């Protein structure tokens, strides 16, 4: 058998991999490291991905997501509305309506209506904080600097980012910072953790309740270890992060969404609110005409949840057919694998809208065989967000 040689890339890669402020901690925890978006990241710890995944759903997982980009946009005028209007030139979200201390999901679009990156925006009262994908951060920074330079000072932060996810995330963080318990899903607050001011959002990428903690690099290890002292909290790597987000039905940029996928076909219409579809602030972002037309008209294809009906995992790239034999591919799987909490294979992919109704049985080709997969509904595991 050929064994995946990912871990050796670190030694042979031409450009040295970057390290997060928690790199030494991962090595101390005996993590299996692998290159991801130019960083040497923990894929899993000795406990293994299945246990890390299930522990996160049962208690709390701690993830190093410091590879992600953190970008601050500060209005040159001092007025947040000026910055909000400027940001709305690049994203289809309602940024003007985003209250201080709140966070929102959105994406940068391009002129052809595709998605350049998906991101989180927080209103931090005197500036906006963006969290963007690691692989896109250089591109995003350039795009923001170019598009917003008249209105905003754009600055990339060199901070760590820790995600604490799971039903015990609140109690674990509250031991170090009791005020976190008062936060709701998508609230953002400054909290003192072990004497350090951190920016904490009640959000994540697992479908669980939890927090994403932006903190200075020099205290990242101390705070991570402070959280890990709690027996409810276990470290979890990128492999578990991927299975958790897949079960939650969340998109991975570069796999499920990219410059060729428009928001409507990706099932992200909910992130384009009425304020950007009608009235004085209609459109105004790149590709707006195409994107809004598709919202009205409906997309020709749709991102759907797929439930393979056999035990064989169906992975990204597998073509989808309407027939058990013959025919031409009508779509493909964009993410797929095994869901440790549902204990069966799960996937997502794009299919023609006419074949996107839940229950529709399609066939995925895996190693030359057509395997039945049923169109299902997202999420595979119910979200546990803390809402008022």
């Amino acid at each position, binding site marked *: *058998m*050929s*064994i*995946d040689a990912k871990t050796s890339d670190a030694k042979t890669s031409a450009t040295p991999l970057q390290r997060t402020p928690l790199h030494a901690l991962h090595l101390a925890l005996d993590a299996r490291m692998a290159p991801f978006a130019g960083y040497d990241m923990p*894929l899993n710890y000795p406990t293994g*991905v299945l246990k890390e995944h299930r522990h996160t759903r049962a208690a709390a997982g701690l993830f190093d997501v410091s590879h992600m980009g953190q970008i601050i946009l500060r209005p040159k005028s001092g007025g947040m509305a000026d910055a909000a209007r400027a940001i709305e030139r690049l994203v289809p979200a309602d940024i003007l309506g985003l209250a201080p201390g709140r966070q929102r999901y959105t994406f940068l679009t391009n002129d052809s209506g595709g998605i350049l990156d998906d991101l989180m925006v927080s209103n931090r009262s005197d500036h906006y904080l963006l969290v963007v994908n690691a692989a896109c951060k250089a591109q995003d920074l350039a795009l923001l600097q170019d598009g917003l330079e008249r209105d905003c000072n754009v600055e990339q932060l060199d901070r760590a980012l820790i995600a604490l996810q799971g039903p015990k995330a609140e109690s674990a963080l509250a031991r170090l910072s009791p005020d976190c318990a008062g936060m709701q899903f998508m609230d953002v607050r400054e909290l003192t953790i072990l004497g350090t001011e951190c920016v904490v959002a009640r959000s994540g990428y697992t479908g669980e309740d939890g927090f994403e903690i932006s903190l200075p690099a020099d205290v990242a290890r101390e705070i991570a270890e402070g959280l890990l002292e709690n027996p409810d909290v276990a470290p979890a790597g990128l492999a578990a992060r991927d299975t958790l987000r897949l079960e939650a039905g969340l998109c991975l940029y570069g796999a499920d969404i990219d410059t060729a996928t428009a928001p409507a076909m990706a099932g992200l219409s909910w992130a384009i609110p009425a304020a950007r579809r009608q009235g004085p602030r209609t459109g105004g972002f790149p590709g707006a005409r195409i994107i809004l037309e598709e919202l009205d008209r409906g997309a020709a294809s749709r991102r759907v949840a797929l439930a393979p009906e056999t035990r064989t995992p169906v*992975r990204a790239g597998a073509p989808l057919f309407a027939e058990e034999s013959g025919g031409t591919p009508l779509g493909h799987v964009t993410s797929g694998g*095994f869901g440790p909490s549902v204990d069966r*294979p799960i996937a997502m992919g794009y299919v023609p809208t006419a074949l996107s109704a839940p229950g529709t049985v399609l066939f995925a080709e895996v190693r030359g065989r057509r395997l039945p997969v049923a169109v299902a509904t997202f999420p595979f595991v119910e979200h546990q967000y803390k809402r008022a």
Partner: protein
Amino acid sequence: MLLRFTEDHEWLKIDGEVATVGITAYAAEQLGDLVFVQLPEIGTTLDKGQEVAVVESVKAASDVYAPVAGEVVAINEEIVNDPSIVNANPESSGWFYKLKLADVKSAEGLMDEAAYKELIG
């Protein structure tokens, strides 16, 4: 009983003309948690190097190749029902299949345990 290993990280326990075949502890550890195992049908005739089984970890699928030529005479259904057995006991209860060797001498040239340990460092 003769114990042999391949460069593709399989082990063979050879008893007369039948070899029990599995993947090594090193391979199981490198693959991580297995979630799916596909085994050949009993009676399948294999050439050396032919794809005989598939193992899938959470992250990826890997083919398992026939270390020598022969006929599949038994398969371990237990690991199909519970792939975690392979991670827990790769070189005992996590065996994959039994192969009736086409040529009893064919396995003799494979690595012994010391040579395999040197290979994986």
